[in-house]
């Protein structure tokens, strides 16, 4: 005995079960990301002036790597078109082409995640520095001649942790070029990097671009990480369909095509979230 309408649509609704199921799930996802976007808007609208002196803005922006973000957007868009092409290939009974497009999709997904972790690492090793005399910088930290790195998390410091290290009394700091006031312009227009030699007791505040550093980073990391988890989950499912799950094509081709459509719908949704996320956190 089987559940009806797993492959054929129910006549009066015109839908097969999984299609309705995935759209319901996506509706809840809209509310999930909707909640996060609402939080973002609220925190940003309410952000107080002067909380982040280094960029002289209430809400630091232009701190993310725009060229890379743009590239990643293109990667995700590509994967979105390939997944729908994969489905179309099945519709045209071309299994080999289906598998090719699926592989491309999964490859894009993994590239997206790889690039994203490169960006994360870039942020975790980027610092905000404020001195006792009120000067503020962003840049890179050099402790005992080495750049602290994300992959070795014990070397990501804030001021307290730095002071707790007895063998460190001074640091070097490669400051980023000054930015145009009022509107940060990312990596554009490189001026020279200033090298600072500092005693630890000159420093008022020092922290990497971590979630705890500022609400902007907090929301950036939280939403993109959640989005990344969706990408990862989607990639796993699509990879499953491309290989072990593809057995179903032989026995139940319609049900298999439906699964691909449903998986694709999820994948497009992930793309949709990014379409908003990218301008909102990178550009605005």
């Amino acid at each position, binding site marked *: 005995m089987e559940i009806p309408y797993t492959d*054929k*649509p*129910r*006549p*009066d*609704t*015109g*839908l*097969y079960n999984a*299609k*309705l199921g995935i*759209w*319901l799930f996506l*509706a*809840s996802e*809209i*509310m999930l990301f*909707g*909640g996060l*976007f*609402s939080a973002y*808007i*609220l925190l940003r*609208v*309410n952000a*107080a002036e002067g909380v982040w002196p280094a960029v002289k803005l209430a809400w630091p922006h232009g701190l993310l790597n*725009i060229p890379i973000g*743009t590239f990643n*957007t*293109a990667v995700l*868009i*590509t994967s*979105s*078109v390939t997944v*729908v*092409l994969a489905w*179309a290939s099945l*519709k*045209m009974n071309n299994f080999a082409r289906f598998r090719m497009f699926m592989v491309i999709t999964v490859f894009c997904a993994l590239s997206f995640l790889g690039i994203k972790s490169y960006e994360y690492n870039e942020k975790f090793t980027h610092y905000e520095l404020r001195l006792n005399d009120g000067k503020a910088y962003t840049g890179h930290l050099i402790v005992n001649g080495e750049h602290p790195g994300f992959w070795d998390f014990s070397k990501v410091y804030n001021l307290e942790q730095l002071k707790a290290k007895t063998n460190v009394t001074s640091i070097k700091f490669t400051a980023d070029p000054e930015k145009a006031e009022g*509107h940060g*312009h990312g990596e*554009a227009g490189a001026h020279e990097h200033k090298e600072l030699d500092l005693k630890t007791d000159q420093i008022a505040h020092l922290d990497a671009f971590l979630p705890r550093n500022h609400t902007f980073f907090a929301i950036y990391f939280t939403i993109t990480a959640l989005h990344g988890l969706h990408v990862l989950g989607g990639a796993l499912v699509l990879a499953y369909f491309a290989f072990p799950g593809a057995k179903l094509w032989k026995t139940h081709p*319609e049900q298999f*095509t439906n699964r691909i459509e449903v998986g*694709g*719908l999820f994948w*497009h*949704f992930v*793309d*949709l979230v990014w*379409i*908003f996320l*990218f*301008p*909102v956190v990178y*550009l*605005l």
Partner: protein
Amino acid sequence: MSDNHSHGPTGGSATAGHDDHDHHDIASHIKTYIGVFIALLVGTVITVSMYYVHFDSMALTIAIALFIASIKSFLVAAYFMHLISEKKAIYGILIISAIFFVALGGLTLWGMHDWPTGAEGKAMYVP
């Protein structure tokens, strides 16, 4: 939603649902997909270049960026996700969640900006 009775005559031939996309149809869909793909890339390029062009008004920048994002998301939803020819039930679900999403964001924002006279939302240490 329609009464279950009414589907009587078609009930036996539910298979029709899928075969109406014949190969020819799909081939024309593929053209659309490629077109949308290109449009999405173009949209991305416009958004980013607009950022470098640097408008004076932040509000304008935000408006344009979100406008382009909306168009892009419309394209994805309408063509990749086939919303343009989807069933009523799906539209219903999406409309409901859209309404509640707007209610959540809108009312929260309003709630955080309508205070009794004299309230100060930002500083604790008032002189």
